[in-house]
């Protein structure tokens, strides 16, 4: 798929490939997310979801292909792209020895966030951790660490959110807060790409759904429950073995 730079695209991925030794995680993957759009990437274990997120977040370098975020190549504009994106990964990526507030203050300083205390209070209230900011991250529950991780990703008001199974470990209240963040009406231009195992939640939270299978996008369409379910059964189950060692 050729990249059309005239389109108003938040995330453009073309011909992305990545292998770990002999295991091919991504094979010529192409996808696009527009500003204001939420794309859920569904896929079975080992389908390449985490590798896709790590590549978009510039935590791993692709073997081939290109990623543009806001029209900027991640290969050549790393610092500017990182300012644009907020990333939630599987691991919370927090310092256990620092309190929640200290973690957020540290990352806020690294992102050059202005009026940082005010911003921390705002994000903490948004994700429901305002009363836990004085507790060390290492002693928080898994769900609270996950919330703190989401707060870290939102701290610098990113224009694009990239999240790897963000609902994992969250309770019902936190899931509703996450849904509100994704559907944030105060930020209608924000683009969101999230991966998940949970098809129902993925469909509920997004405008479009893509199914990743064997390191490629096997299906992409509007967030329609029946069509997605049929496509998921077709692509994400019987092709799992393709992602195993070649």
């Amino acid at each position, binding site marked *: 798929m050729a990249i059309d730079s005239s389109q108003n695209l938040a995330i453009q991925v073309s011909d992305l490939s990545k292998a770990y030794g002999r295991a091919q995680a991504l094979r010529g993957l192409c996808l696009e997310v527009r500003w204001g759009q939420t794309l859920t990437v569904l896929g079975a274990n080992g389908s390449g979801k985490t590798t896709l997120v790590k590549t978009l977040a510039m935590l791993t370098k692709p073997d081939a292909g290109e990623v543009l975020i806001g029209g900027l190549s991640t290969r050549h504009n790393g*610092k500017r792209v990182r300012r644009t994106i907020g990333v939630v*990964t599987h*691991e*919370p990526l927090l*310092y*256990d*020895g620092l309190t929640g507030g200290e973690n957020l203050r*540290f990352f806020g300083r690294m992102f*050059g966030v202005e009026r940082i205390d005010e911003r921390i209070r705002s994000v903490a209230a948004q994700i429901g951790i305002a009363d836990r900011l004085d507790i060390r991250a290492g002693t928080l529950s898994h769900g609270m660490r996950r919330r703190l991780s989401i707060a870290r990703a939102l701290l610098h008001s990113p224009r694009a959110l990239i999240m790897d199974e963000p609902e994992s470990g969250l309770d019902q209240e936190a899931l509703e807060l996450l849904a509100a963040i994704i559907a944030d009406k105060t930020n209608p231009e924000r683009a969101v790409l999230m991966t998940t195992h949970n098809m129902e939640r993925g469909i509920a939270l997004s405008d479009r759904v893509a199914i990743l299978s064997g390191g490629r996008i096997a299906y992409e369409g509007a967030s329609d429950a029946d069509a997605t379910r049929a496509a998921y059964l077709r692509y994400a189950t019987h092709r799992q073995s393709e992602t195993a060692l070649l």
Partner: protein
Amino acid sequence: MRAFILAVMAILWKDVILELRTRDIVVTALVFALLVIVVFNFAISPTPQTVAFVAPGILWIAFVFGGVLGLNRSMALEKESGGLYALMLTPVGRDLLFFGKMLGNFLFMLLVEVAVFPVFAVLYNFSLMMPGLIPVAALATLGVATVGTLFAALAANTRSREVMLPLLFFPVVAPAIVAAVEASTTVIQGGGAFDRWIPFLIAFDALFLVVCPVAFQFVVEE
């Protein structure tokens, strides 16, 4: 320049807070360095004739080997917590991440040296007042921390990082250790180290302060 200083200071602040709470790095390095000094004191029974020749070597073995333990721990903590990934998500150059981590390691190693030197002076019967050792210690420690931070990041990506770090690190840092020992011997014997060894340490530091931040970005990115 302001952004450079703010980012480096933020990383330093974070490392200092974490160290104040866990004491993982300084205590490990300090205990090891003290053990080396005490064990050598019993092993060689230093006499006034021999002590000026062997003591600087013992002192730098204690500093550098203790420092290696601290360096290993410093980067392992980043790796285990996922902190290194989190740092890589920030819009800060990898060279600044390097300088932030290096500065913390440098500070912790200096702290250990400040704590160990009085014990060394008492055990080996030296004067505590040797201002000539200050520039030697500062420059040599800066070189060790610079090279050590790079190789600790490299070793942290391997399974046997405790073994890998000394294997990678000592061959590169050996010239700085030799210079530090020679300079310390000259100072202890009442001479000045500024004609030869101090310029050598300055050149060593300057070289690796340029090379290591550049190499760091290739080390931390998969």
